[in-house]
């Protein structure tokens, strides 16, 4: 063989060998990540993407397992025009399912934009139908949404969840972290070889509330009718189990639809039952009497001479009817709702013991309810710069201080519960994603008055209602309660026309299973609680006892139709 040919052959062979070696090296380095820096960076930018996995938000149920808040999905529907190969067919199918004009769709498909949005937050029926068409270039993006199947019902209790998945107001706001679960921000790869299940997120916990959807509906229905009949502009009905502090219903009107929070008046979002302060008026006399009885200042058999007016700190206090009632029993003081009598009691009790008693009932303090936005009310006490001697008298019949509806009903519930003041709460049970069930047990906040005091007061309140033939009476049931007509403070005094009419009552007196507060703001049919709130209470409780399956404790009265 020619020597020159041999050399050339060897040279070419060497070159090919080197080339082959380089290729093998590259294959090995690519396959086994020997040279990773550049390719890792390229992979990160080209093949990896970041996703935020929002776990399903915990659901809300009532005490009987009725679903109150759940999750659903809306869909954003859009086009990537460059990926559409058959515009005519795509437009035909899309137009049929979405109802969008075919010509508009065809025009969108000729757009030079990378993405054209067709529908923002389409309902699931449309979104899923488009998804099933599986059309090239049509992008269907699911967007989670909170859904409240009962719409307006219990909206102030539940609150709402924004499009950013943040809970506001009510339970949604208070328990937002618990309900939201653990969000996962995850790097994911488009390469199947590196696919992972995206582990690491945690669903939100489910919450079982203390409310009963049936009682809540009854309360809202009753309140709606009451507003219509009395001309009141707003109102609340609260129902509690005095023994446990369970809130069975908390109705406030006007309400809002949490499904459409974005279009609602933001002023409606606050829950007036926990953050609307008002001067409670005569329902406060229940607490004044309880404090006086408990301190031994008076007994159920005590009397006082009602002169129709009493001067305290330079201010004259009159009865609502401006009449002197003479020698009056404690029961008649309550039945006739006499301001002079209440002021007499607070004066006899003295400021130190009177205000300590109010604080024991939780007046001026947060109840600690597990709802977002509670306020504490206002109670001026001796030692405060703005406290005046006359406050001792006016506070005794519910003027010159402010409470929330929940605060006053919680305080009076202590009278129905042997003097023990219970923590009002709205969440009964929590179920974590791992199946752990946590039950929130009733919590005693303290003792307001003795059991003997409450037993005496229960009898007095029940007797007072019967003596006055109150419109709040419920045939077949012994009810203890008190009306209230609170004047509305305005700069320089009180509004001469407008009032807040209230009635708070509980029953059956021997073993109270419910306490109900009815509050009507600025009724026009009558300014008095005894004529507006009291009959609403009776109407409501007649139906409530059926729902709660409470048999009559006075069947004879039921037979007589009393």
């Amino acid at each position, binding site marked *: 063989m020619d020597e020159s040919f041999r050399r050339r052959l060897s040279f070419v062979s060497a070159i090919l060998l080197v080339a082959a070696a380089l290729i093998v090296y590259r294959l090995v380095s690519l396959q086994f990540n020997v040279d990773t820096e550049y390719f890792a960076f390229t992979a990160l930018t080209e093949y990896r993407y970041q996703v935020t996995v929002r776990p*399903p938000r915990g659901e809300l*149920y009532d*005490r*009987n*397992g*009725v*679903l109150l808040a*759940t*999750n*659903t*999905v809306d869909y954003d529907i859009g086009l990537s025009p460059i990926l559409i190969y058959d515009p005519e067919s795509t437009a035909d199918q899309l137009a049929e399912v979405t109802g969008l004009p075919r010509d508009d769709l065809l025009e969108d498909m000729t757009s030079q934009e990378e993405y054209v949005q067709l529908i923002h937050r389409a309902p*699931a029926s449309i979104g*899923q139908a488009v*998804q099933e068409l599986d059309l090239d270039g049509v992008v269907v993006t*699911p967007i989670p949404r909170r*859904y409240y*199947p*009962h*719409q307006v*019902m219990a909206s102030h209790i539940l609150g709402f969840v924004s499009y950013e998945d943040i809970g506001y107001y009510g339970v949604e706001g208070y328990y937002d972290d618990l309900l939201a679960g653990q969000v996962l921000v995850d790097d994911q790869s488009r*390469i*199947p*070889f*590196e*696919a*992972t*299940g*995206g*582990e690491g997120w945690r669903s939100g916990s*489910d919450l*079982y509330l203390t409310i*009963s*959807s*049936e009682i*809540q*509906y009854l309360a809202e229905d009753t309140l709606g009718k009451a507003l219509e009949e009395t001309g009141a502009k707003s109102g609340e009905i609260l129902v509690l*189990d005095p023994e446990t502090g369970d809130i*069975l219903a908390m109705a406030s009107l006007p309400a809002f639809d949490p499904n459409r929070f974005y279009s609602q008046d933001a002023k409606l979002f606050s829950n007036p039952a926990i953050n609307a302060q008002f001067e409670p008026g005569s329902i406060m006399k229940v607490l004044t009497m309880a404090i006086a009885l408990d301190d031994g200042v008076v007994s159920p058999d005590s009397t006082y001479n009602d002169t129709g007016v009493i001067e305290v700190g330079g201010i004259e206090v009159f009865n609502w009817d401006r009449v002197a009632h003479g020698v009056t029993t404690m029961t008649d003081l309550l039945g006739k709702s006499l301001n002079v009598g209440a002021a007499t009691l607070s004066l006899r009790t003295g400021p130190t013991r009177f205000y300590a008693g109010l604080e024991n009932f939780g007046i001026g303090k947060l109840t600690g309810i597990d709802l977002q936005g509670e306020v504490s009310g206002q109670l001026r006490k001796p030692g405060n710069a703005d406290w005046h001697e006359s406050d001792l008298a006016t506070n005794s019949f519910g003027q010159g201080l402010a409470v929330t509806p929940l605060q006053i009903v919680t305080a009076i519930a202590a009278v129905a519960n042997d003097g023990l003041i219970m923590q009002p709460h709205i969440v*009964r*049970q929590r*179920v974590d*994603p*791992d*199946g*752990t*069930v946590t*039950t929130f047990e009733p919590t005693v906040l303290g003792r307001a008055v003795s059991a003997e005091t409450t037993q005496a007061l229960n009898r007095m309140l029940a007797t007072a209602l019967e003596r006055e033939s109150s419109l709040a009476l419920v045939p*077949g049931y012994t009810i203890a309660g008190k009306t209230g007509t609170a004047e509305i403070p305005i700069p320089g005094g009180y509004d001469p026309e407008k009032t807040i009419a209230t009635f708070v009552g509980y029953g059956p007196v021997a073993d109270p*299973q419910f306490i109900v507060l009815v509050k009507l703001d600025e009724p026009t049919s009558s300014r008095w609680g005894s004529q507006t709130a009291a009959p609403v209470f009776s109407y409501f409780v*007649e*139906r409530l*006892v*059926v*729902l*709660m*399956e*409470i*048999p*009559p404790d006075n069947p004879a009265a*039921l037979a007589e139709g009393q």
Partner: protein
Amino acid sequence: MTEQQPNGNWFRQAIRQAPWRTQTQASSLVLAVVVMVAVIGALYLAQASRTAAAGRRLQELEVQREVLEQQNEQLRAEIAALRSVPRLIDEAQDLGFHNAKQDEVDYIVVEEVPAALGAPPTPVPTVTELVPTYDETLDGWLSEQMAVFREHFGLFWQRTFGKGGPPPDG
């Protein structure tokens, strides 16, 4: 005529490897290496293919799960809306029912039967068992195959030679 004398070199001559034999051995060695590399490559490729296929399947299942969860949520929401109190009351009224009044209710008090608003029933949670993470490697797969082989071989040994069996691992 001369007689051929036995030569001492004939044996060495006989056993000396012919050039073709040396070449064959070298070729065989190269071929064995190539085959081994090919087998390892094939195993690795098979493993990689399986992993990729599983990954792709996982991605498809993820998408499918997401769609099913969305449909499930939608159905739950629809059921909840159909079971809402206002709707049920409307339906009941359409059917001629009305809310029970006090004089239409007869109570039979039975001791130790909880009232309607007793403690709510404890919910029964449903905990989904998660599928274990797919983490098979080539080493793991080979070890698994070896373990299966040893097990089968052990059984074969026992059946064929009775008690005893091959020495244990290690």
